[in-house]
C-alpha cells in the first residue's frame, strides 16, 4: 500500500508514519555519514600507520645494514686471522701427520722389539720366579735342616754339659 492509497481518515497517522520513516531515513543517512567519516579516519590512520611502519622497516633495514657493515668491518680482519690460523693449523696437522707417520714407521719395529723383549722378560721372569720359588723351597728345607741341626747341637751341648757335671760330682 502506498501513501496515495492511504485512507484520508488516517491522515495524521499517515503523517506520523511518514515522519517516522523520514526520521529513520535521516538517522540512517546520519549514521552512514558518521560511519564513512570513521572509515575515512581509520583509513587515514591506517595509511599513517602504514607509512610509519614503512619508516620503521626502513630504519630497521638501515640499522641492520649498518650492523652488517659494522660486523663485516669488525670481523673481516678476524676472518683473515682465522684464515691464517686455519692455514697454520692445517700446516701443523700436516706436519703432525707426517710426524705420526714417521713415528709409526719407527715405533713399529720398536714395538715389535719391545713385545719380543717383553715376552723374553716375561719368560725370564717366570724362569727366575720358578728358580726363586725353587730356591725358596730349598732355603726353607735347608732352614728346617739347620733348625733341626741346631736342636741336635743344643741336645749335644746339653748332653756334654750334663755328662761333664756327672764327672764333677
Amino acid at each position, binding site marked *: 500500500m502506498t501513501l496515495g492509497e492511504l485512507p484520508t481518515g488516517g491522515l495524521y497517522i499517515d503523517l506520523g508514519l511518514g515522519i517516522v520513516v523520514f526520521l529513520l531515513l535521516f538517522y540512517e543517512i546520519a549514521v552512514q555519514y558518521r560511519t564513512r567519516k570513521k572509515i575515512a579516519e581509520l583509513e587515514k590512520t591506517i595509511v599513517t600507520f602504514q607509512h610509519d611502519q614503512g619508516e620503521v622497516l626502513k630504519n630497521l633495514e638501515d640499522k641492520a645494514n649498518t650492523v652488517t657493515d659494522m660486523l663485516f668491518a669488525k670481523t673481516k680482519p678476524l676472518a683473515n686471522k682465522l684464515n691464517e690460523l686455519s692455514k697454520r693449523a692445517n700446516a701443523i696437522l700436516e706436519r703432525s701427520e707426517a710426524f705420526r707417520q714417521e713415528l709409526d714407521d719407527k715405533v713399529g719395529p720398536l714395538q715389535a722389539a719391545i713385545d719380543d723383549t717383553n715376552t723374553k722378560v716375561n719368560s725370564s721372569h717366570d724362569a727366575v720366579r720358578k728358580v726363586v720359588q725353587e730356591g725358596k723351597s730349598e732355603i726353607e728345607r735347608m732352614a728346617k735342616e739347620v733348625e733341626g741341626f741346631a736342636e741336635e747341637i743344643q741336645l749335644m751341648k746339653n748332653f756334654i754339659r750334663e755328662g761333664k*757335671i756327672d*764327672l764333677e*760330682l
Partner: protein
Amino acid sequence: MKESNATILFADLMNSTELAKNLTLQEYDDMLVNFQDTLFEVVSHHLDYFGYKGNGIDSEWSISGDELRVFLYSENIYFDISNALLIATKIKLAWLSSNYNQKVLSEQRLVSRIGAGINCGKVIKDVRPWRVKIGKAEPNIEGYAINLTKRIESASREGNVYQIMVGASLYKRCQQNSQINVTFSKAKSLVFKGLGQKIPVYEVTSFVNFEILSSMPVSLQKGLLEKIENTVRDAMPEPWVFIVLLRSYISKLNSNNDEDVDLKALEIGQQALEVVEYKPVIYNILGWLHINGKNVRNLEMAFHYFDQCLGLQPKNEAALLNRARILEEMGQIDLARHAYQEILFQNQQHPVARRKIAEYQSAQ
C-alpha cells in the same frame, strides 16, 4: 758259634719267695704281672733309646718269672757297662714307683726291692739243634761269666746301698775308666755254692748319671719325680734314691726349669748326709749346689763341702777340681795353681788341670 765279650746283668725280686708264701696265688700273680710289665717297659725302651739293635746282634734279654737277664755285647765294653748300670738303677727306680709299691708305701709297709748283679766276661752264642727242631732258632748264651754273675746277683741281698753287686772284672774296668762316675764298696769275699773259692764282690755305693731319669720311658716319667720325693720322705728311705733325686735336681737347675730347685736340693742333700753311708758324692753335690745355685751360692760353704769330701777321699778328682776352681774364683791364684798341680800329681792327663797350669806358666 760266636764268642763275645759281654756285660751280663741279672736282676730279681729279693723277697719273692717270702712274697709267694704270704700272698695268695692271685695276689702274687698280680704283683708278678706288674713287675714283669715294668721290667719290659724299662729294658725294651732303654735298649732302643741307646741304639742297641737287639735280636742277638749286640744285645739279648729275657724275663722269666721274677728274673731279668740282659746280655750286652756292642764291642764297646765301657758303653755296655754304663748301660748295664743304668738299666739296673732304672728298673729299681721304676719298680719302686710302680703301682704295686706305691700302694705298699702308702700302707707304710716295706717295699719289695730288686737286687742286681753285673759282671763282664766271655760268653759263647750258639743256636742249638734242638731249638731249630722246635722252630725257635734263638741262640743260647753260655759261659762261666753267666754262672758267676748269677752268684754275684744272689749276694745283692747282703748289700745296703744300691744292692747292685758287681764282679772283679767289671770293678777293674771301672777303675781304669774315669768316664763312668761310679764308686764301689770294699770287696767282700764270698764263697759261692759250686765255685769252690772266694770270689770278690763289690757293691755300687754311688752311681751319678744324668740319664737315669731322662731316659725313662715317657709313660713312666709322668709324676716320677714326685714319687721319688715321696719315697725319700719315708721313714726308711733307700740311700741310692737320694743320689738319683739330687742329680735330677741338678739337671733341673742346669736347664733353668725351676729357679728354686736349689733350695729344695740343699734340703734333700742335708737329709741325705744323715741317711747315706757313702758321703763323698753327697758332699760334692752340696758343694756344686753352693757354687751354681742362684739362691744358695756361697763359695766358702762350697769349699767346706769339697774339703769334707777330700777328708774322706783325698784323691777324689771332682772335689780337687772344684776346690781349685773356687780358689781361682776367690782370687787365690797361688793356692789355685797348687790345687791344679795336686790334680796333675794324681792324674797327669787331666785336661783341665793341664790347661790351667799351662795358662799360669804362660802368664808368668
